[in-house]
């Protein structure tokens, strides 16, 4: 099974650390994960899977998991018909300066995107703000829980 992760970079952030942990475990599990990053960076821990620029994900054949609002907006422009998940690691959207409702709502409430939240507070906030149904809450890329969702 191919799983593509889209991230800002694989540098020293909590998100990258847990995401690489998931990807490494997936390799041991016999899956084929690939990480796509928007800016080149040194990995914060040893990688056991390939890592490339995000433009390589354009026609990637596999399930896609985006981890930031920038990544998901880019993913939505890719032609792949695979399942697209937005793993909402943080509510970065609430801190954007001069944010505008229309473009953000089109991304978050997009019917092609399935949302996965990191905690129930994020879930409550997204459901309140965008009238969306967040079906999944997975803390810190927990392997078994996230894999179960992706396999569906």
């Amino acid at each position: 099974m191919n799983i593509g992760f889209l991230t800002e970079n694989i540098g020293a952030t909590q998100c990258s650390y847990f995401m690489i942990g998931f990807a490494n475990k997936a390799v041991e599990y016999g899956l084929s994960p690939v990480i796509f990053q928007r800016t080149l960076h040194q990995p914060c821990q040893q990688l056991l899977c390939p890592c490339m620029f995000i433009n390589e994900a354009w026609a990637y054949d596999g399930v896609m998991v985006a981890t930031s609002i920038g990544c998901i907006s880019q993913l939505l422009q890719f032609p792949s018909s695979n399942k697209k998940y937005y793993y909402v690691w943080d509510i970065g959207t609430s801190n954007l300066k001069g944010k505008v409702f229309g473009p953000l709502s089109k991304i978050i409430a997009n019917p092609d995107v399935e949302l996965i939240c990191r905690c129930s507070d994020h879930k409550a906030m997204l459901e309140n703000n965008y009238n969306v149904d967040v079906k999944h809450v997975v803390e810190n890329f927990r392997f078994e829980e996230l894999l179960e969702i992706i396999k569906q």
Partner: protein
Amino acid sequence: MTKIKIVAHACEGNTYSGFEAAAKAKGYKWIWWDENMVALHDVLHEVKPDVVFTMQKNVRDGVIRAFTKYNITNVVGNVDKPFNFTVNKYSINGHNNILVDNREYEFALLVDTSVFNPQQPPVNPLLQCDIGITAKPCKVGLDVCTEVGKYNVKVLSDTEWSVPQYLGIGSLENKRDLYHQAKVVIVDQGIEEARAKLCRMNNVVLSWETDVDFDKLVSGEVRRHYADVLQSYEYALETLLELEQEQ
């Protein structure tokens, strides 16, 4: 016929957007002026407008002299004779009403009725909620945002709110959809109040109000009605049409 040129101050809340639609429909040239980009004197010199819509704070002695020099009709705040383009006319009226041929009309006339009107159905279901807020940060709004989960609150304001319910800046269409679908809206007094009331909103709370019982308003137990505003708006529109036909 000479094309009438209008310069309008792009002030917060797009106060003059209602006039823009009306003026463009009549074939007039409409130019938005951003005070942060260019000084008013430069605009007057370069554009040589026939009419200038400004806010009270921009009207100073030098500006008044310039209006006289260039023979410009000035509309200050929400007053003067907006559709009667008699040049070299200058007046300030501090009220929240507008004057058309010395008759006063409700503030509702300033609303862009191509967007905000009772018949226009909402199109964006994402803006369905219990309480919609378009006001600047205010105590009554912050109170309902603090009680997370009690109400479905959405804040769509030009001024940034430090609450998780803040959705960002909304277009006029977004605001229209919010006014149509929210059970209660909290708005600033003035143009937004008129817009909300014209969307047949039943419960409009003004941002300075205190001791508001939101439970009763959201549940529909208490309803506020604004039939008088709708009536005055329809009456004023009729009069404007008559005036246009006379010209």
